[in-house]
């Protein structure tokens, strides 16, 4: 955790504010476009927000937060109760959505999904890499960073207020896609689904706010062996692997509990995990907050 001071809370658009956090103990940890941090809120909740400031600025982090209509207590707290001047703990940056080298980029942003893409756009423009941005939102008044993206990329930005012009025609963008162009998309679930339907899987990178509703086999019990501590635990059908490990005293960090943020990553030594996360676990890793087992037994490095 890094100690910061909440320097400013500023309205950016309707129902969107930005938070500027200044490092309280010297420079903040470095980050790359696409990275997010966990914010520990005063109401004990931890929430993930993409960093949308300038990676070269080691003094402050900037995040933007939309007030969700069905807030579980994170965005409502940020909007209504968080006050400038208070200290806030922020995790080290994590990047599940890194910008890979490519000769050209197409960025697709839906609403607050602009946040991880903004530093990507800035990096691509700064490096002189050809890129364009399609930025859709309900209405211009609800879309943050309009001025910023316009001044960054000018006519390579297509801003769509879907209330007026309807959803972006992704099929047209897919048909016109250069052979080595990489596509980065962050937005609400319908936009991600539309993108997944038209862009080649190997060239599309997405980041979700919330997990996609998907069907899995019914939860079954399994066993987990912790190789370092030597204990073997039973994971009942109605408990997550994460909860079982934590109840047994293993200090596995966790945050979103939805397979989105990546903070509970553990190493799998044997057995076959059933990956249910949204991140695409790297080989030999799993996210025990949502993932379970296909084999009757897993061996993990704990």
């Amino acid at each position, binding site marked *: 955790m890094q100690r910061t001071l909440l320097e400013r809370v500023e309205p950016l658009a309707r129902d969107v504010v930005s938070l500027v956090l200044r490092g309280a103990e010297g420079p903040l940890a470095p980050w790359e476009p696409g990275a997010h941090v966990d914010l520990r809120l005063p109401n004990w909740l931890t929430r993930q927000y993409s960093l949308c400031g300038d990676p070269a600025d080691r003094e402050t982090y900037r995040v933007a937060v939309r007030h969700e209509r069905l807030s579980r*207590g994170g965005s409502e*707290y940020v909007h*209504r109760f968080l006050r400038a001047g208070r200290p806030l703990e922020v995790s080290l940056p994590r990047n599940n959505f890194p910008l890979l080298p490519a000769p050209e980029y197409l960025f697709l942003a839906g609403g607050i999904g602009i946040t991880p893409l903004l530093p990507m756009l800035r990096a691509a423009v700064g490096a002189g890499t050809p890129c364009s941005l399609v930025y859709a939102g309900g209405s211009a008044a609800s879309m943050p960073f309009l001025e910023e993206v316009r001044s960054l990329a000018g006519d390579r930005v297509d801003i769509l207020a879907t209330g007026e012009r309807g959803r972006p025609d992704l099929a047209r963008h897919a048909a016109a896609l250069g052979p080595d162009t990489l596509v980065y998309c962050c937005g609400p679930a319908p936009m991600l689904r539309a993108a997944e339907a038209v862009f080649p899987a190997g060239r599309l990178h997405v980041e979700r706010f919330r997990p996609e509703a998907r069907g899995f086999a019914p939860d079954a019990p399994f066993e987990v062996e912790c190789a370092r501590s030597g204990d073997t635990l039973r994971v009942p059908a109605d408990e*997550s692997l994460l909860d079982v490990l934590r109840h047994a005293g293993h200090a596995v960090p966790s945050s979103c509990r939805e397979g989105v943020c990546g903070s509970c990553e553990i190493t799998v030594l044997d057995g076959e995990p059933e990956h249910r996360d949204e991140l695409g676990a790297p080989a030999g890793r799993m996210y025990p907050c949502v993932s379970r087992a296909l084999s009757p037994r897993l061996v993990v490095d704990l």
Partner: protein
Amino acid sequence: MAHTRTRPRPLSPEQVLALVGEPEPMVKNKIIDHIDEQYHRFIAHSPFLTMATSDAAGNTDCSPRGDYPGFVKVLDAHTLAIPDRPGNRIADSFRNLAENDGIGLLFLIPGMRETLRVNGRAYPTDEPEVLARLQAEGRTPRLAIVVRVEQAYAHCGRALVRSRLWDPASRALAEEMPTPGEMLTAQLSLDIDPRVIDEGLEEAYRKLY
């Protein structure tokens, strides 16, 4: 030795009034009929409340509810939603509310001497949009209690000052208490090791959701 049963003399409402007088106008005026921004902030920082309900016959019950601060959601200025979590002794409250929808809530914030009182009418719901807002640790409650607010007011902190409730030194009081297992085995004259009960409880406390 058992306590002798006593019944101190009751007072009439007139006698009480003569002893304590009418409430100050300011005290009366601070009662509002909705949740304003200040009380919303109070609820958003409160991890604990007591909930009083009673049945048609006047049998009354008061139970604790607790979770992360703001676990009670302010749906609008007149409406609260309280999640039902395992171990809340829900049955008593819901049985009462089915007969009598009156409810009284007292919100506490650790470290704060003033408390927030909210009275109103309540009913259970399984409305998905409400339950979605009440998730904790990735679990969605099956039920919530919706409270239609009729009265809300901050209660002055004298009781908490006198009780030294937030004084860390007050925690020494708990050391004078037997464990829950010891209490239960004594009350029920059980011939088992109290530690079995205490360990069972500790296990249950590790699984909160």
